[in-house]
């Protein structure tokens, strides 16, 4: 891999620089029932509209200390740089809401890098109604429950394995909130993801990866 390609990830950061979202600056960051180990998160997004709601959901989760947001693409340079990052880092949390093509590639790269994948989801929204095919490991199973709880009009999960849910407007921010939790079984009693008046249309892949 060329040196140029290794450095590409820097150039792929949204708006030309890492968008670091500090929880300290968020007025609505509520306290949880006990101290939570705040962890940095790498957040990958690929759609302007979806990313706003998803990022807002992540921001609302009090457990997140610092979020670096990257715009995911399915071109060779981004993929090579992501591959490099997967191999180089240890214990990094990477969550994302990206397009289908990028999602397919990123998850497969996670597999070959030996990363742990806690959650995968397919999400489709049309005309204000959304469908979600989600799957989580046992350790992250409450992510599904938490997601369903916050997403407006979401069907109740029947199991903690792969399943299809339907929801409406709030799903993207609810998803961001749920996936940002380093301890999915922890309840953030006084904190909820922000609400939106319009739904995010389109189709997406979500994931939670630990290098």
């Amino acid at each position, binding site marked *: 891999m060329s040196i140029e390609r290794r450095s590409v990830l820097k150039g792929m950061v949204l708006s030309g620089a890492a968008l670091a979202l500090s929880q300290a600056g968020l007025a609505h960051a509520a306290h949880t029932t006990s101290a939570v180990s705040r962890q940095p998160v790498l957040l990958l997004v690929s759609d302007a509209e979806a990313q706003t709601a998803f990022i807002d959901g992540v921001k609302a989760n009090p457990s997140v200390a610092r979020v670096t947001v990257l715009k995911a693409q399915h071109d060779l340079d981004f993929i090579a740089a992501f591959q490099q990052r997967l191999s180089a880092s240890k214990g990094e949390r990477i969550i994302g809401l990206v397009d*289908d093509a990028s999602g*397919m590639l990123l998850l*497969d790269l996670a*597999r070959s890098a030996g990363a*742990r994948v806690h959650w995968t989801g*397919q999400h489709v929204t049309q005309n204000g109604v959304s469908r979600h095919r989600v799957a989580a490991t046992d350790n992250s199973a409450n992510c599904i429950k938490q997601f369903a709880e916050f997403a407006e009009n979401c069907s109740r999960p029947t199991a903690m394995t*792969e399943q299809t849910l339907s929801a409406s407007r709030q799903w993207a921010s609810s998803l961001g909130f749920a996936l940002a939790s380093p301890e999915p079984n922890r309840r953030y009693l006084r904190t909820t993801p922000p609400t939106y008046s319009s739904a995010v249309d*389109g189709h997406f892949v979500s994931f939670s990866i630990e290098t």
Partner: protein
Amino acid sequence: MTTENNKVLPKGITQADFDKAMDEFRALLGKDNVLVEAEQLKPYEKIMMPVDAAEHAPSAAITATTVEQVQGVVAICNTYKIPVWTISTGRNFGYGSSAPHHRGQIILDLKKMNKILHIDADLGTALVEPGVTYQQLYDHLEDNNIPLMLSFSAPSAIAGPLGNTMDRGVGYTPYGEHFLMQCGMELVLANGEVYRTGMGGVKGDNAWQVFKWGYGPTLDGMFTQANYGICTKMGFWLMPKPPVIKPFEIQFDEDSDITEIVDFIRPLRIAQIIPNSIVIAGVLWEASTAGVRRSDYTTEPGATSQAILKQIQKDRKLGAWNVYCALYGTKEQVEVNWNIVTGALKQLGKGRIITQEEAGDTEPFAYRAKLMSGIPNLREFGLYNWRGGGGSMWFAPVSQAKGSECGKQKSLAEKILNKHGLDYVGEFIVGWRDMHHVIDVLYDRTNPDEVKRADACFNELLDEFEKEGYAVYRVNTRFMDRVADSYGPVKRRLEHTLKRALDPNNILAPGKSGIDLDTFKDW
């Protein structure tokens, strides 16, 4: 002994035996190379087929780094009768991804066997391990100024030559029929012996990568798309990089032009005037790879209307059919062949040529030109954004390279796909005398009704094509057994006779291409 906290077990294997086997794998491979935790196995479950991922969940994934370790894995699998599904880079996506054929099989992931063992710049040969990717090979050639070029499938960069060739994949250069360019394999057999094909068994030989046939029966083909051995090394030929590569496109405006296109192209291909594996791509394939999504035009369920297809064609300046070819050689050779091609097109009286100079960096021309020039890219993943939802199955029937055959196949496929509310997203890849008709059956896995329709659609495609005398050359794991039936009972009995002789414990990838001693009854 460790007790595994694992809900998935290989069929017929007790937890106690499974735990013992895992301990033996750890002793052989090191604990970091034996994956049994749900978070480690989850990425191996990712599928694009219309079934629950649980049906293809592995019980474990192990990684080996040497041939001796692969031999050790086979020995342990024989001891405990544990079936092992081997992957190289695991990037088979619409043909089944990296998930095993059926639930409980362990995965032997050879991604860490990733050495480029030898490149001979003079002879244009390579010898690689299973985990070598095309990007790795491309970088090696570039970094070392070796004037050879690659042929690869569209996932190019992240896929690998060994796995693609073992599955008889194709590329887009003059070396596009990859198995034809394969020369020499090393395989670990089910009894643990290491077998080398061709000249590979001769002590002191150095012709393993240049002479395919060796002496006596030539068995290479028997190991492709099969489960008789685990390929640990493969040799293949690389094309000398020519001084000039001239990629070009010919656009045709009407769907019905396919008959004339094929009859126009065939003689040029057979005579090697156009030497590469030419692609004749439909409008939706090209639109998707250029970044168009179905939702840009409609949110109506079902098949996309002809009116929209025409609108996309107009908006994106595409043909109903988009033919991609390239000429290779010296300036003089290319000029002669260019005159022949343009002369033949003039005679045909239709079709619009677009050169690289005219197309510039516009997609999809740019990525097609790269594929034909041996430069990796990932542009074709745009197909997954057309409809969205993560469902993809390649339906890949073969036909003669005759216009009437291709027109018939296209009409039949489109009729069946549309009946099930899905789109024809297809292309033809021209071999020397055959057509690989490759259709991506794209559907939304979040929609239970669409999942059912996609499954029914794929079955109907297989059934109706079979009635017309067609069969697919490759298929995802869900339909392997069904497709094996298309090729007749004698072939199936022979394949299982070989399996019984070579792998009596049925440990190597049971189910691959329909070969499985546990389920086959038609002796």
